[in-house]
């Protein structure tokens, strides 16, 4: 029998209610008086607070005119005399716009309008009897603040039609009724609420609307409708909701994303300004604002608004949250970078407000390294908040919302991974969804629901607060409490004995491509992390006072670790800004590092691995530059002159594709992959399958192009042709280099495989002309190793990762983040893979696959296109990675020798890694940061007592013996 779907074509009662709701909204404004003498001047922002103008002067701006330009800022002004009939009333300024506009009247910032709000209160802030000089600065985005807000989405585009600006009065009765309907209609349309209650609502909302007469000359029945809702709907307590939800207001502000960092200054101003005005109108309103860097820009460029902010901090309404300087990516930065995020963030808050914060507020970051809890705890941070694992995981439901997060060294912090998105607009359905998704109902106390528009700032609206004021009248809602971030954390997590423990990294099962996208940025970040270490060390050793300069450079560097800059998820101009910053920072650091007559080993252990030193007369080549491979054999923190060995004997042989070195017998395939790698010392074969094989996969993750690699990426592989088969290209007394040129239809890939006379490492240098679209290049190594785990460097210890796919948890971790090395070993030996700036790696059974390059097109259509040069080094070894000293090899590989005339007079602190040495923030001490990276416990006896510090450089004790435990980071002051 054919099935005939019955479609209702006549208007349903709910549609009739919706229609009249739209009519009702038209009566919100009582009076609207158009400002007709507006003038506009189009510009484009080129630097912080610097603009290029399209014209010498202003032009008139009339309703219906086109305004704004691509990436445009517009300055709009008018002198306004308020008409007599409006004086004495509560006046608003109204401008419906897609742009983000900050409004100044008579020199004072009054408020802002943007796609999320079209009006701002005027009358308490201005004298309506005098001429009001309006000065507006608007910034227009094709991508609105928040694509989740349909009204915002509908007005996107770089050229906008001006809809007029008005001085107006509001019909408070209508506005209040509109808020009532908005609240109740949201519940009526949400299947998260009781079906019978929704039927009741649909019936009674229709009845309430029936009180209003829309046909008369004037709107009547508003009061009656309001009364009906109060008596029939809000008084009804038959339907009981459950739950206990904490509502924390905030705004997510990406410092750069679909906009440049220079624009975040005004985005932040507008966001702060709007929240301050809401605080004036709603004294109970509290708002949490993160990222000390944004406070610095406000203080620098808008000191009057900053002073207002300070007052609101004092009265408890404006809450600084988030100890970190910006909300950084928490996968790729190394331990010292994350410590500096906390140090400079906390110091900034301390200077501005006389206090630190005890939370890390990282709602949008793409997973969190296992090294974080220790860093947070030692930086005065007891609480950690980050949303994405709950709402974005693509495979497993993260099993906690309120819990204890245990770090790699055993440090615990209280953690909250709220059940739902960090951008909501306080609608009942969103709050109900949060409660229903909340896992820790029995032991976690309240659930955290953040509200406020964001990505580009904007924050809370009057509408959100009006919704919140009505929640307690609805028995069907969970219990809702508006609270500050710190209050929520202290109340529900502190000393909560019922909380479960999560011991491990907070891996995000999404955005796995961000370990690889924008290869240049990752490499520069790695290189500069090392240069900061060297520069600070040398200034301390040489007794130079460069603290101020280095701090400023560090801050600029930390900004570029923001979670849409370093991960690569940004538009092209953001990339250009980052690269310009890196160049400026590197030049400055090189200048600080300077030069000298001898080489200095900045590592606090013996430097015993071959190192390439540039020399125009050298006989080897690396990255296109001549030089020599030297074996420094330098004790920790010592100086030496280095000379080439002078060895000129035949130490390797080549017979077709077979190569003999002192360590290995290698059989190449024509494409540079290894058919065999026989270890003469260990008498074993290392190859079992494709090994050092370049594989290029079709990489089409969809809308989250720059962010994601999908689990099925291996399904389609493109052919990599051998343009020029492997052959010997260079050899001297220390190294032998074999070259191969590979190619696809669009790209060429030159690989140089380097063996050494006196080293077990096998270096592979890659020089690539990359012109692909939606491809992922990986180097794959199928090892003759039986193991179920791989070790990955975290920069402050190693993490074990399973290589099988037994459960969905391992299946989801098909691509993970590592730092300088990873390793697969049996108890007798294994293979380490060391890199100089690659972070993505996958493991499956006996294979390691290092992610090398991607080619995404959203948000940057040219992402990663161009020339690339990078190296990785294979190190087959005896024993496991720890006993083989792989971490030290990787540190040497990533720490170039420098020339410096200096003498180290302090202990070397071996076997701990000297992670940093710097002048203390107060300038009174030398601060030394040591890191245990091998998972061992022990003691270091010192000749003199030292101060024991936390990471904020507070003195916590004194000792002449440093006791350390596995993966501990210890800070001392001398």
């Amino acid at each position, binding site marked *: 029998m054919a099935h005939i779907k019955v479609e209702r074509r006549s208007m349903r009662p709910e549609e009739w209610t919706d229609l009249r709701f739209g009519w009702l909204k038209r009566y919100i404004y009582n009076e609207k008086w158009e400002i007709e003498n507006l003038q506009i001047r189009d510009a484009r922002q080129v630097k912080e607070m610097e603009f290029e103008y399209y014209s010498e002067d202003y032009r008139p701006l009339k309703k219906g005119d086109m305004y704004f*330009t691509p990436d445009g800022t517009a300055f709009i002004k008018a002198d306004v005399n308020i008409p007599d009939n409006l004086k004495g009333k509560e006046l608003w300024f109204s401008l419906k716009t897609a742009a983000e506009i900050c409004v100044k009247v008579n020199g004072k910032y009054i408020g802002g309008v943007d796609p999320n709000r079209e009006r701002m209160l005027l009358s308490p802030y201005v004298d309506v009897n005098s001429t009001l000089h309006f000065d507006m600065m608007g910034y227009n985005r094709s991508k609105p603040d928040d694509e989740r807000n349909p009204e915002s989405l509908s007005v996107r585009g770089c050229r906008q039609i001006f809809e007029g600006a008005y001085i107006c009065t509001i019909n408070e009765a209508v506005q209040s009724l509109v808020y009532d309907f908005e609240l109740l209609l949201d519940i009526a349309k949400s299947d998260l609420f009781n079906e019978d209650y929704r039927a009741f609502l649909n019936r009674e909302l229709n009845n309430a609307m029936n009180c209003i007469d829309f046909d008369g000359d004037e709107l009547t029945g508003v009061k009656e409708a309001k009364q009906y809702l109060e008596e029939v709907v809000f008084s009804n307590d038959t339907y009981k909701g459950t739950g206990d939800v904490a509502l924390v207001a905030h705004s997510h502000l990406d410092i750069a994303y679909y906009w440049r960092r220079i624009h975040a200054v005004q985005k932040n101003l507008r966001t702060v300004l709007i929240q301050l005005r809401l605080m004036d109108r709603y004294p109970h309103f509290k708002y949490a604002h993160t990222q000390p860097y944004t406070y610095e820009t406000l203080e620098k460029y808008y000191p009057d608004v900053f002073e207002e902010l300070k007052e609101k901090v004092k009265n408890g309404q404006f809450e600084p949250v988030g100890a970190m300087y910006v909300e950084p990516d928490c996968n790729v930065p190394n331990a010292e970078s994350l410590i500096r995020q906390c140090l400079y963030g906390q110091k900034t808050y301390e200077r501005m407000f006389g206090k630190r914060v005890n939370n890390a507020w990282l709602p949008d970051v793409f997973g969190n390294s296992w090294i974080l809890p220790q860093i947070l705890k030692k930086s005065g941070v007891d609480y950690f908040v980050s949303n994405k694992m709950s709402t974005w995981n693509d495979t497993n439901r993260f099993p906690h919302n309120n819990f204890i997060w245990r770090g790699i060294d055993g440090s615990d912090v209280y953690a909250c991974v709220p059940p739902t998105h960090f951008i909501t607009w306080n609608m009942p359905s969103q709050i109900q969804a949060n409660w229903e998704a909340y896992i820790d109902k029995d032991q976690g106390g309240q659930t955290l629901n953040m509200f406020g528009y964001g990505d580009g700032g904007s924050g809370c609206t009057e509408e959100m607060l009006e919704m919140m004021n009505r929640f307690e009248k609805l028995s069907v809602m969970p219990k809702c409490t508006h609270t500050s971030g710190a209050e929520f954390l202290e109340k529900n997590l502190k000393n909560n004995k019922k909380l479960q423990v999560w011991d491990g990294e907070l891996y995000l099962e999404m955005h796995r491509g961000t370990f690889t996208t924008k290869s240049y940025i990752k490499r520069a970040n790695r290189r500069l992390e090392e240069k900061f270490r060297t520069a600070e060390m040398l200034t301390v050793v040489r007794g130079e006072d460069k603290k101020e300069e280095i701090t400023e450079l560090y801050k600029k560097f930390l900004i570029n670790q923001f979670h849409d800059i370093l991960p690569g998820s940004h538009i*092209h101009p953001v990339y250009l800004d980052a690269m310009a910053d890196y160049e400026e920072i590197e030049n400055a650091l090189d200048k600080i590092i300077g030069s000298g007559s001898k080489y200095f080993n900045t590592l606090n252990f013996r430097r015993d691995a071959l190192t390439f030193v540039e020399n125009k007369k050298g006989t080897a080549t690396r990255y296109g530059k001549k030089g020599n491979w030297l074996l420094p054999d330098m004790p920790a923190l010592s100086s030496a002159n280095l000379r080439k060995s002078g060895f000129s004997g035949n130490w390797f042989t080549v017979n077709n594709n077979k190569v003999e070195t002192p360590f290995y017998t290698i059989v190449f395939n024509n494409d540079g992959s290894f058919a065999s790698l026989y270890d003469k010392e260990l008498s074993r074969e290392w190859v079992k399958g494709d090994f050092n094989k370049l594989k290029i996969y079709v990489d089409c993750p*969809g809308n989250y192009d720059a962010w994601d690699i999908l689990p099925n990426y291996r399904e389609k592989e493109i052919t990599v042709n051998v343009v020029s088969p492997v052959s010997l290209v260079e050899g001297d007394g220390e190294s032998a280099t074999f070259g191969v040129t590979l190619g696809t239809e669009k790209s060429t890939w030159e690989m140089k495989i380097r063996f050494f006379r006196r080293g077990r490492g096998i270096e592979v240098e890659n020089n690539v002309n990359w012109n692909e679209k939606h491809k992922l290049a990986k180097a794959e190594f199928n090892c003759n190793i039986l193991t179920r785990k791989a070790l990955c460097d975290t920069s402050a210890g190693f993490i074990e990762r399973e290589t099988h796919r037994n459960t969905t948890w391992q299946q989801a971790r098909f691509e993970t983040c590592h730092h300088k090395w990873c390793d697969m070993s049996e108890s007798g030996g294994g293979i380490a893979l060391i890199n100089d700036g690659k972070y993505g790696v996958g493991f499956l059974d006996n294979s390691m696959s290092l992610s090398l390059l991607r080619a995404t097109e959203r948000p940057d259509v040219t992402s990663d296109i161009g020339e690339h040069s990078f190296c990785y080094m294979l190190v087959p070894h005896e024993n496991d990675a720890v006993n083989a000293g792989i971490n030290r090899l990787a540190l040497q590989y990533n720490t170039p020798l420098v020339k410096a005339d200096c003498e180290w007079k302090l202990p070397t602190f071996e076997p701990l890694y000297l992670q940093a040495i710097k002048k203390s923030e107060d300038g009174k001490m030398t601060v030394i940061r040591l890191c245990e990276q091998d998972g061992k416990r022990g003691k270091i006896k010192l000749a003199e007592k030292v101060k024991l510090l936390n990471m904020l450089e507070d003195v916590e004790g004194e000792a002449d013996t440093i006791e350390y435990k596995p993966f501990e980071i210890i800070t001392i002051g001398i």
Partner: protein
Amino acid sequence: MEKYINEVLAPKLQGDGGWVEFVSLNEGELTLRFRGECSKCLILHRCTEWIEQEIKRDLKKNVKVVAIRKRPYFQDV
């Protein structure tokens, strides 16, 4: 014209998450390829009119822009 598009206008569109590339100029008909956010913009015609105005002001040439949209694969529906 190509230099002007690439060096003067393109950075502005890029700042907005968009992208424009010069394709050809034939007797006053300027063909441009739009990518990124521009490729799916509902009001791209306003931007192309602005481009025509900018070219007229800066290069003193009257052109009519023909827009080719190159949407990313995941939005090309």
